[in-house]
């Protein structure tokens, strides 16, 4: 913990208390994020329970290969983020800049792959809305009854909202990371900001760890 060479604000007793306050505050923020995503996971659970066949059929139309690669990319970015925090704590500037930059690159790669997936869904008319279309003959799954198509539209609606909110969090995280890279290049002491950003980045990773099996892996054995 980098508590020896930081400036202690006047309202803190010492550097340790200041650091503990930052950590606690960050975790409280992450709990509000848990409840934000938790609401979506609850909606997902209730509708998947209600329409299991449609959710399985919809899941078959997500790109398993790209989803798996993206999972590995995001886990890799968590590793480089942890390494960046280690470098920041040890005031190793070159390592900090390098690992923060690698995290930015891996995060950007994740969003790039995600946008390729989104583009495919637009081409396949799997985006909820007026042009949503499901052709049972080629796509398999439940019959083309109107209710079944509506249930599939619901699955893809949840897919876009959940992965979209996740991607939005990554965009914000990348913005913060770029600010940190600039600060690291200037040689600023940013051990605590890097540590708090790392907590946020790992949290976003955990959200994806649950989104991946729930969206991409259901009914693959069917």
């Amino acid at each position: 913990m980098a508590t020896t060479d930081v400036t202690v604000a006047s309202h803190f007793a010492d550097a340790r208390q200041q650091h503990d306050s930052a950590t606690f505050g960050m975790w409280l923020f992450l709990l509000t994020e848990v409840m934000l995503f938790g609401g979506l996971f609850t909606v997902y659970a209730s509708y998947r329970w209600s329409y299991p066949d449609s959710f399985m059929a919809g899941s078959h139309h997500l790109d398993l290969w790209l989803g798996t690669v993206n999972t590995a990319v995001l886990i890799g970015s968590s590793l480089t983020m942890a390494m960046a925090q280690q470098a920041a704590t040890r005031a190793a500037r070159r390592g900090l800049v390098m690992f923060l930059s690698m995290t930015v690159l891996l995060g950007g790669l994740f969003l790039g792959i995600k946008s390729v997936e989104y583009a495919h869904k637009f081409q396949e008319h799997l985006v909820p809305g007026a042009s949503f279309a499901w052709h049972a003959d080629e796509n398999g799954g439940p019959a083309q009854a109107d209710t079944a198509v509506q249930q599939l539209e619901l699955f893809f609606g949840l897919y876009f909202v959940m992965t979209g909110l996740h991607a939005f969090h990554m965009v914000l995280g990348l913005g913060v990371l770029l600010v940190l890279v600039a600060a690291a290049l200037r040689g600023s002491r940013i051990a605590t900001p890097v540590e708090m950003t790392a907590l946020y980045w790992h949290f976003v990773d955990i959200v994806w760890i649950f989104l991946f099996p729930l969206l991409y892996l259901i009914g693959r054995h069917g």
Partner: protein
Amino acid sequence: MISGSHASATTGYVCVFAGLLVLTALTVSVAFVDLGGLNNTVALLIASGKAWLVVAFFMHVRHGSALVKSTITAGCAWLAILIGLTMSDFLTRSW
């Protein structure tokens, strides 16, 4: 240049990273095996294991304060209430 603790912390991170990749490969593989209704449970158990690895090691909660640990426990409890009470309705509608 590299001190002992520095090297061992790096080794730890790389081991956690490797463990997360192995669990990802496992969850994808097991999704193709028909476990007769248990597929979802297994997938969520593996995901929870991965989340624990991230929280404990990458987020350093294993050596974190009791305050942080109880904060996370409270978050998990509230999430369980949110999902549990909602599903107690959906799961029992056919009774």
